[in-house]
């Protein structure tokens, strides 16, 4: 309670033509928190971040950064932003680009510190268009860090990186967080949200479905999807009392999301159901989210 909300989003709706990309989101992020906005592609995460950093304006509702309008230069001077899709000035060198962005901030880190942070010492004098994709991604992170920001926005920061580069990137972010800074990131990797965040906000179809600790979201995502073809007619009532989170019947095909697949199958076999084409698989993030919402609504 005593902490200042650095990001404050209230009842934000963002409509693009017929699409409600953000459909009533309220979110407050306090100093020192690392919040991951997690959701499938097209869920509205990037639009949420665009609204938080003032690249877009809400159709209704309000967003503030440090109590200012997000497009206020006083707010932006305290933030670093790494966007998912943005270009770089190709004919400047790495070092020149960093110096340019340093000039935007009141108390920037030194250029040497940034170059060292992103490990591009060898490439400091190379022009940006000669960098590999991974090196460009590191430069984007470096540019976001130029102003020694109190608050860092990372929109899908590791898309397109290999596993090793992704883990390397996480190390940077964790080091940043240890100094008491605040991070808002978007990702569609649960693993990434779990590795970095102490709070996961699951977004789908422009709405916040869950705002919880990684442990809660992770346990939900450990749900399994059990599907089979029933050899005799089946109705919903047949599954009463069984460990079933969600049930989908499509003719003879049965699909069940459950946290206890073993107990479920044991019960089915014990009562003599005969199953063909049985499949047990990890639930997708969407399915895990549906299960979570089902639980939170009940």
């Amino acid at each position, binding site marked *: 309670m005593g902490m200042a909300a650095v990001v404050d989003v209230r009842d934000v709706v963002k409509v693009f033509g017929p699409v409600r990309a953000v459909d009533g989101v309220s979110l407050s992020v306090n100093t020192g928190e690392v919040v991951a906005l997690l959701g499938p592609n097209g869920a509205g995460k990037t639009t949420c971040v665009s609204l938080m950093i003032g*690249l*877009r304006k809400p159709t209704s509702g309000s967003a503030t950064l440090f*109590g200012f309008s997000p497009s206020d*230069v*006083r707010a932006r001077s305290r933030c670093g932003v790494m*966007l998912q899709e943005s270009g770089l*000035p190709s004919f400047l060198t790495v070092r020149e680009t960093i110096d340019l962005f340093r*000039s935007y901030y009141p108390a920037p880190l030194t250029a040497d510190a940034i170059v060292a942070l992103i490990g591009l010492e060898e490439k400091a004098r190379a022009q940006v268009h000669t960098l590999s994709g991974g090196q460009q991604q590191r430069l984007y992170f470096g540019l976001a860090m130029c102003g020694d920001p109190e608050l860092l926005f990372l929109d899908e920061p590791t898309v397109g990186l290999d596993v090793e580069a992704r883990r390397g990137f996480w190390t940077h972010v964790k080091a940043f967080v240890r100094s008491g800074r605040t991070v808002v990131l978007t990702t569609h990797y649960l693993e990434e949200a779990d590795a970095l965040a102490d709070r996961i906000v699951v977004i789908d179809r422009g709405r916040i479905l869950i705002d919880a600790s990684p442990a809660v979201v992770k346990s939900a995502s450990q749900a399994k999807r059990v599907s089979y073809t029933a050899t005799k007619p089946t109705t919903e009532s047949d599954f009463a009392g069984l460990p079933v989170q969600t049930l989908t019947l499509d003719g003879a095909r049965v699909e069940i999301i459950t946290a206890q697949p073993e107990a479920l199958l044991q019960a089915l076999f014990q009562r003599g159901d005969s199953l063909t084409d049985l499949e047990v698989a990890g639930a997708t993030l969407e399915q895990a989210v549906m299960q979570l919402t089902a639980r939170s609504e009940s």
Partner: protein
Amino acid sequence: MGASKADSAHSPIRVAPFLPMLAAQAKSEFLMLARVPAFTIPTIVFPIMFFALFGLPNVHEGFGGTTVGKYMLASFGAYAVISVALFSFGVTVAAERARKMTALMRSSPLRPLAYLGGKTIATLAFALVTLIALFAFGAGVGGVRLETGQWLGLFGVLLLGVFPFIALGFAVGYLAGGNSAVAILNLINLPMAFGSGLFLPLPMLPHLVQQIAPYLPAYHYGQLAWNVIAAGSESTLSAVVWLAGYSVAFLLLALRAYGREQSKEYS
């Protein structure tokens, strides 16, 4: 809400000082221009080449109260600066939009005035370089002699009068795509320069072109330069009024195009 608390920033300085930001922006913009041969060759080499082709063969011949050499130096000086302004604003803005650099810059604390000011300073600095190269060639190779005041006058009017072309470049940068900007700018620049008498003096052009010329911005800009060497056919005041009118028109066009992009991408 927590505004009063959030107000107490860690550092007493809350935003970056404007002038160093402007200087860094201007330096970067200049380097980005100077490193692209597709920009430097048409703006530095072409005017010198045209002067060598059209002006050198009869450089000391009398023409309209002055000499061919002096007249052509003023003409191609105007052509060079127009090219710098159109391409520096038009192509870079279109490329920034196409490559989504705009989003990165907009989400940073870069101030719009530093962005525009940096581009303008870089454009003027580059225009100065092109003029120095052209005039050095004209004086050194062509043996063109002007009074000191006339040299300074040419630099002065050409650099001060460039604003309408900056505004036009900016408008094209916001209207054109990243790939089409260069073609569109060439389609504007070359016919306008020819039709305004910058390549060949107006009396040598077809009657129809002579009729159209007084409605082209480059014609009035050329008059500013020709007046410096007492070879103009329009008063400087009249030329300035025309150029101011074109500036307003192109600026409105640019703001409209900018506003359209703004409402599509950033609202």
